[in-house]
């Protein structure tokens, strides 16, 4: 019998597993809702021994690190065993309150952006900030920000980073995939400049864009170098975050992708390939169909979440691109959350043909939203299992 990790690896390489891995990721707030609906905390709470309260006491104490309901619910967590390499600004900006009204808070975030949050929204995640100002606005602010993006900063690696220990940990982990995660070229730029400014700059200051993207390639490769060269193919999958599309299509045209992004993608994916890391999963919401040829050319070979509402069709991609991409997701989260007939229709229509075609791991087409009750998730789990 294969372990969950072996199943993930098999499907990601278009081999047949003994059963399909069912892969999910839920908002923390969805899990909190599930506690209220009967999810037993004792079965899903992750508790670790460590020095008390962040190192303030020379005592070994138990600390709640979070919740992992995935194994309990019969699925794999998308993030599996995630290597904690810090790709943010160092030193970090200190998060602090800037302004407050009766309805909103304005905060300086850890990335240096000013963000407005709703005080009245019921869910913290769903009151996700609206950014009102970004730290990088032009060439001058970019050069200033770049000082915080030093790949050699020792704080980028976990404080217990020790190659032999991590090699052992990455060899023995079997609950799911082992993963290295970082931001792609669009994701990084949009996060530092804001979507409108970053998109506009390809026309208004293309030289600045070339400069930023080139630096990001250097920063990414040098930041992950130690992890990649140490762990090599013990890293099952790289998670490459972009989020560069909406329902209409990508935010950038194929022409911009080819000119500004493609050479840098190739250099990063070549670096990974040299270290035998051969599965690279791109996370982008929205409709990425118009640039899928370029994404394939770039060395990316996995796609998640394949958002149905944006017109992404896993069957169509598999038929068009063959084994160029392994696929995760593409089950419409809204239909799944409805339960009953709607959920069954969605699963019936996609999972059997995709299982037959191979290279597909079923799951919702994004994080499981708070609208999905625990009972509905269990119903969905019980139903999908017949196809795994």
């Amino acid at each position, binding site marked *: 019998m294969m372990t969950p990790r072996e199943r993930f690896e098999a499907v990601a390489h278009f081999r047949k597993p003994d059963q399909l891995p069912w892969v999910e990721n839920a908002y923390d707030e969805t899990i909190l809702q599930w506690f209220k609906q009967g999810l037993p905390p004792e079965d899903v709470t992750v508790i670790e021994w460590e020095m008390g309260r962040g190192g303030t006491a020379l005592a070994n104490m138990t600390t709640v690190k979070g919740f992992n309901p995935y194994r309990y619910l019969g699925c794999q967590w998308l993030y599996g065993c995630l290597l904690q390499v810090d790709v943010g600004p160092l030193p970090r900006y200190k998060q602090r309150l800037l302004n407050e009204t009766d309805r909103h808070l304005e905060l300086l975030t850890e990335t240096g952006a000013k963000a407005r949050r709703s005080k009245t929204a019921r869910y913290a995640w769903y009151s996700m*900030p609206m950014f009102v100002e970004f730290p990088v606005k032009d060439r001058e602010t970019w050069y200033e920000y770049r000082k915080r993006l030093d790949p050699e900063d020792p704080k980028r690696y976990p404080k217990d980073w020790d190659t032999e220990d991590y090699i052992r940990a990455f060899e023995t982990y079997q609950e799911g995939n082992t993963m290295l995660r970082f931001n792609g070229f669009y994701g990084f730029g949009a996060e530092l400049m804001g979507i409108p400014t970053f*998109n506009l700059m*390809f*026309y208004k200051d293309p030289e600045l864009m070339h400069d930023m993207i080139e630096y990001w390639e250097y920063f990414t490769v040098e930041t992950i170098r130690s992890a990649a060269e140490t762990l090599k193919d013990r890293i099952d999958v790289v998670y490459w975050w972009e989020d560069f599309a909406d329902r209409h299509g990508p935010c950038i045209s194929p022409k911009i992708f080819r000119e500004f992004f493609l050479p840098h993608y190739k250099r990063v994916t070549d670096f990974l390939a040299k270290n035998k890391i051969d599965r690279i999963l791109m996370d982008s919401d929205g409709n990425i169909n118009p640039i899928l040829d370029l994404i394939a050319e770039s060395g990316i070979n996995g796609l998640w979440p394949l958002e149905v*509402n944006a017109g992404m069709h896993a069957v169509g991609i598999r038929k068009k691109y063959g084994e160029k991409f392994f696929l995760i997701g593409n089950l419409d989260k809204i239909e799944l959350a409805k339960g009953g007939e709607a959920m069954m229709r969605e699963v019936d229509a996609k999972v059997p043909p995709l299982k037959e075609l191979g290279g597909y791991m079923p799951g919702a087409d994004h994080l499981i939203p*708070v609208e999905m009750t625990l009972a509905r998730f269990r119903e969905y789990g019980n139903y999908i299992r017949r196809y795994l």
Partner: protein
Amino acid sequence: MNDVFENIAQAIGRLDPAENTKILLNSAVSQGVNASDIVEKGIRRGLEIVGQKYEAGEYFLSELLYAGSLVADLSEILKPALKNQRIQMRGVIALGTVKGDIHDIGKNVFRMLADSAGFEVHDLGVDVDPSVFVDEIERSGPQVLGLSALLTTTLPEMKNTIDSVRAAGVRDKLRILLGGNAVKKEFGSEIGADATALDAVEGLGICRRWTQK
């Protein structure tokens, strides 16, 4: 004369560098071409070309944003010449992100396009209470009410807003357009909107059709 307008329109449609397009515009102004004609027959036509290319999958968000920025630059040049002229407006749109939702990128792209296309846009901002939409309808009498939402959890606020408009007795005076990443076409019909746009260009096309004279 038509060549002058067409050249400006094509330059915008091709997303020429701002400097080149400004030269065309300044040349037209110095030849004594009527500024409001430049706006209506050159700039707005140029934006229509951009919209068509967006719908055809040739242009994307970057191109829309650059076109908007280009048009804003050109409009700035024309401002003095337009001081004593009347530009024909296509109609009035009241616009906002519904209560509980503070996201505005999509709304702002739509506003920029609608502004440039000749609509008078009253942007009420984000996290807008239904009563604020109703007050605006009573105050400015828009032909279109545009409601935006990014978050699925704020979709009920779209319905609440439409219900409030109905309860205030002003529903029949305008058409309601929904937009934003959270909305689907079926949802719009279910809650009594007149149309749902999946992107800003589609939304603008719908407003144009609704306000055609």
